[in-house]
Every structure is written in structure tokens, then in C-alpha cells.
């Protein structure tokens, strides 16, 4: 009897080990497809913020990314009131540049991008394999896609959301994300219906973010705040080193 118990326990541990391994591998594959190690990345981003009952605001930005050095620079092009403002991220730190005062402010905690439902982490390289572990898997039909649904739990407190659910298509591209708080409250839902292939990588070119908590009643119906991000001119062309410096933000700002 004891012998069987040892075998069963052994089997449980080995299956769990295989499961953990495969989960980690899947996350690493997902990260690799949308990260740009070995090359720079640049694109134009348009962020449309819809606040029910308050209208929409449109922010246009230019983004340069160097994943190998964990850097990015975002320059605000529109609206005119914010033109020349910039974000320079080096490692875990983010410098915000205000051209009106010609001042840089360093921050690690400012999470919301230009008061939208997008977070600054939405513009950095995907680090699911480093930040999360898979704690559950299932299959689900998501519109036209047969997806794997992975339930993730954070392994670090440096992430914005401690729990996530991601829907991954047959090409290992994330199609839908649900972000949860520590108390398992749904905070955000993100949909990525469109990707563009750039070289052997993929760039999400259409992203919809729905804030599960923020919104208001319009004509008797609750409408959530939502952000639509469209990405144009994605490229892996080399970007000069100077672009990833404070001096560059000063040079190009108004």
C-alpha cells in the first residue's frame, strides 16, 4: 500500500513539474514573438480615450524601443497642448519631460499613460515568463479562434496586476487579457484583434482596453471607459543611440 502511495505521489509531482515547465515555455514563446531583442523597434501610436459622457481625446505619439537595453522613448505629437512632452524609460525608471518647465521628473510609479486606461507597461517588452507563472489552463473558443486560456499568478510585486487570464491563439499570440486585483476583482480587459508581422516578430496594431471599474451611466446604461490604441509604421530599423537620452527629448520637443 505504501509503495502505491509513493508511486502516486511521485506521479503527481512529475506531472506538476511537466505542467509548470510547459507553462513557463509557453510564456517564453509568447514573449519572444512580441519582443525585439537583437533589433530596435519604432512605430507611431494613436491612443483614443473614450470617457462615456465626457467625449473622446486623441493622443498621437512616436515610440522608439530598444528591448536589449530595456529602454524606450515616447514623444507626444498631439494634442498640441501636450506636444513635446516625453517619456524616457531606462530599466525600471521613467523620466517624464515637460517642455513648458524644461524639467525632467523621474518616477517608477506613474502607471497610467497620459491619463488613459493604458499603463506604461503596455508599451514595454512582454515579460510574462519573468513576471508570472501558469496556475491553470483550459481551452475556449474566442470568436474565430480556438484559444488556450492561461491563468497566471505574479511571481513578483513589481507588476501592475497580481493575476491575469490570457487567451492565446494557435500562433502563440495573445488575443485577450483580463487583469485582476489581489482580491480577484476584474480590473481591465484587453483585446488585440490585429497584429502585423515585422520580420519574424509580431506587433499588436489594434488594441482595445476596457476599464472594468471606470465608466458611467449614459441613457440609463452603464458604459465602461475604453482606450483604443492603433499602431502604424512598425519597423525594426536601427535607431541612433542618442534617441534614448534626455538630450534627444530636449532636442525634439517644442
Amino acid at each position: 500500500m505504501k509503495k502505491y502511495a509513493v508511486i502516486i505521489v511521485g506521479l503527481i509531482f512529475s506531472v506538476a513539474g511537466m505542467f509548470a515547465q510547459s507553462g513557463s515555455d509557453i510564456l517564453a514563446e509568447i514573449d519572444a514573438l512580441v519582443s525585439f531583442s537583437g533589433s530596435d523597434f519604432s512605430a507611431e501610436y494613436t491612443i483614443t480615450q473614450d470617457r462615456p459622457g465626457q467625449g473622446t481625446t486623441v493622443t498621437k505619439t512616436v515610440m522608439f524601443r530598444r528591448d536589449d537595453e530595456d529602454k524606450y522613448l515616447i514623444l507626444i505629437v498631439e494634442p498640441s497642448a501636450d506636444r513635446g512632452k516625453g517619456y524616457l524609460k531606462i530599466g525600471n525608471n521613467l523620466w517624464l519631460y515637460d517642455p513648458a518647465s524644461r524639467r525632467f521628473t523621474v518616477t517608477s510609479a506613474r502607471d497610467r499613460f497620459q491619463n488613459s486606461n493604458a499603463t506604461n507597461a503596455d508599451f514595454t517588452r512582454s515579460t510574462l515568463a519573468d513576471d508570472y507563472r501558469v496556475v491553470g489552463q483550459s481551452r475556449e473558443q474566442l470568436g474565430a479562434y480556438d484559444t488556450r486560456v492561461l491563468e497566471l499568478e505574479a511571481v513578483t510585486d513589481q507588476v501592475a496586476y497580481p493575476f491575469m487570464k490570457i487567451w492565446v491563439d494557435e500562433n502563440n499570440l495573445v488575443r485577450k487579457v483580463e487583469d485582476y486585483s489581489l482580491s480577484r476583482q476584474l480590473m481591465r480587459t484587453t483585446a488585440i484583434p490585429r497584429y502585423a508581422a515585422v520580420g519574424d516578430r509580431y506587433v499588436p496594431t489594434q488594441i482595445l482596453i476596457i476599464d472594468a471599474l471606470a465608466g458611467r451611466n449614459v441613457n440609463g446604461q452603464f458604459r465602461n471607459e475604453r482606450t483604443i490604441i492603433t499602431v502604424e509604421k512598425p519597423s525594426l530599423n536601427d535607431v541612433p543611440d542618442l534617441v534614448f537620452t534626455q538630450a534627444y527629448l530636449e532636442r525634439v520637443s517644442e
Partner: protein
Amino acid sequence: MKFRAAFIVLILIALVAVTVPLAAQEDVDDLFSIPDETVDEDQQAESDAETDDAVDIAALTMRDGPQIAGTFSATAAVSGGLVDWTSADFGVSAYALMDTGLSLDIRPSSYFRFFTSVSTSLNSEDLDLPMFDIGELFVDYTLADAVFFRLGRQSLSWGQGINELLGNPGNVLEDFGGSTALKAFLPLGTNGLTLLGYGNPAWYNGEISSLTPGADTLAYASLYEHSVGSVTLGVSGKYRHDTVASAEAYVKTVLSGADLVIEGRVDSNDGFSADPLGYDYLALTGLFWENSSVQLLAEYLFDASVTDGALVRSYDHRFALGLLSSTRFAGWRPGIRWFHAAEAGFTRHSGQLVLGASRGIAPRLTINIGLPISYGNESGYYMQNSDDPSGRVASLVISLTLEEDL
């Protein structure tokens, strides 16, 4: 009966809470009814990593011709309230402001840029519009795509304090306004080194009448910042011969999702020439945290002066707390600021509470309502520096602002 009503309300709240995310989810799932052909058509082979349809980096640093831009703003305000706490006197006042600014930006090459900005403001006492002032006039030059220079009259500030709270007291460049400067930025470490030499017209126009511009009368400053993990360290210093020497350092990191900064500064106001030497010290700690609905800002400042090792002025403490809503309520974006100063070794207390809200009421037109309330010792810092334009202790300020970018 009361229990039953409460139960029904709870059920309704629960239903709304459950249906809202569900509605959003169905909405999202509809986006995937048509497959993404971009990926399915196996465009990997067709797509080229080195593409011509990329962001034009040169276009950001070069322009075909000069670019002229401008801003205009006009504000009309009325305020009224209690003049002081000891009497029942009420005062009412009104004021108007009008400012306009123009800028000219010429970028003939990727390494050279000329920029100037001028501005003027309505003088509310005689309704005169004075001649435009030159705010900035500088050229940028980038050497070998690596070292950046800015020469001319320019704006600049360092320090980690929040202007809207305790006014960024760690900024060693508080005397920089209106200066003509040569600034150089060299990439070094994770961020870079900034070197600065500058002269302020105020130094030569009257402060010391015999002073003439020269290498020995300019001020020199530098700033170096470096990041290790989620910790950023910065050191800055300034020296002006026989006048002032300042040193500042800060450490900034993130703790439980909040930005935390500790900054220290020391000034020798006689540039090491006085005997005995006198020093001013200050320490600032600050915190910034935000979630989807609110921003929380807090600062604490300690400052003291020491001459020849003796405390000649009692030390002061100042606290500030700000709460700003990220969301709007019926179109209004509310905020609250609270300041408190404990001066002269906790013997002189004063403070100010400011409740405010703003909303757009028409294109480019914003209404702002503020309720500043000051309290404490008559000679206290916040009783002497009230947000009320006429120094009232409690007032209601309503302003209307028209702003447009030209």
C-alpha cells in the same frame, strides 16, 4: 421592512456589478468573429524587418521651414470671503489676466536648431500691454550624434520636489530664470552628465553694480543621475565665486507601488568666503501614488541654518498633502490640497486647505472653483502666503479661463 429594502438594494448592486463586466466581455469577444488575416496569410516571408515605411526620425529633428506657434489665455475671476478670523469683515475683489506667447522654431539640419519664444501679459493696473519679453532664445547643437549643447537664454530646473506642493526646494538652479547659459549633456552611465555655465542679468544690473560678466562671475553647475534597478540616484551642485555654493543629492525608488524620494541640500551662502562659515540645510521627502481614480501626493520639508556649528535660526517643518481625482463627477474634476507649517521649533503653526474643482463648459473655456482656507499664527508661513489673491483667510474664488494654442 428596513432590512428588506436594504437587501433589495444589495441584490441590485450585486446584479450591476456582475452584469457590467459581462457586457464588456461580450463586447470584446465580438471583435474576434473575423480572424486576423494579417497573421494567417503567413506574411512573415513577405514582411521585411528593414522597412521604408518607418517613423521618419529625421523629420523630428529637421523641418523644411520655420515653425511659428503660440498660445493665448485670458482669465477673469471674482473672489470673496473672510478677511481675517478675528473679525466678521468680508471682502470681494475681481481681477483679469491676459497672456500671450509666440515661438519660432527653425531646424535646418539634424544637428542644429534655433528656438526663441516671446510673451507679454496684460498689466491689470493700467490695462497696458508691455512689449514682448524674450523668454528663451537658444541654439541646439549636437556633436557626433552624442554630445548635446544648448547655448543662449533658456529655462531649466532640477530637483525632485513637486511645484504644486512645497515648490521644489531642492532645485539648486533657483537663480537661473532669465539666464544666458551654455549647457552640455554627455551620455554617461545609465542616464548622463549635465554641465552648465550661466550668468543672470540681475547679477550685473544692480545686485553688485561693479560686477561685469566674465568667467569668474558666472555660476557653474552640474547634474549626474544614475539608476540601479528601481533606484535612481542623482547628485547636483552649483558654485558661484564669493557668492554661493550648493550641493544636492537625491534617492528615488518605488515602494509598494508608490514613488518615494529623499532629497538633501546644503548651501553655503557666502561661497566659502565668510568667516565663520554659514550653511543652510534642507531635507525633503516626497511620495507619489496613483490608481485609476486618484493621485496622492505628499511632501515633508525640514530646513535649518547653522553658523560655525551653532543653530542660529530655529528649524522649520512643513508638510503638504495633495489628492487629485483622475475621474470626473458630473463633468467636474475635483482636487484637494492641504499644507501645514510648523516653524520656529514647533512654536508657530499655520496651514492652508484648498478645495478645488474644474470643468470645461465650452470649447477652450474652463471654469475653476477654489476654496482656500488658511489658519494658524498670523506670522505663520501659510497665513503670509495664502492662495487667495487678496490674502483672505477663507474665500471662494471662481475663475473662467479661455485658452487656445495658436
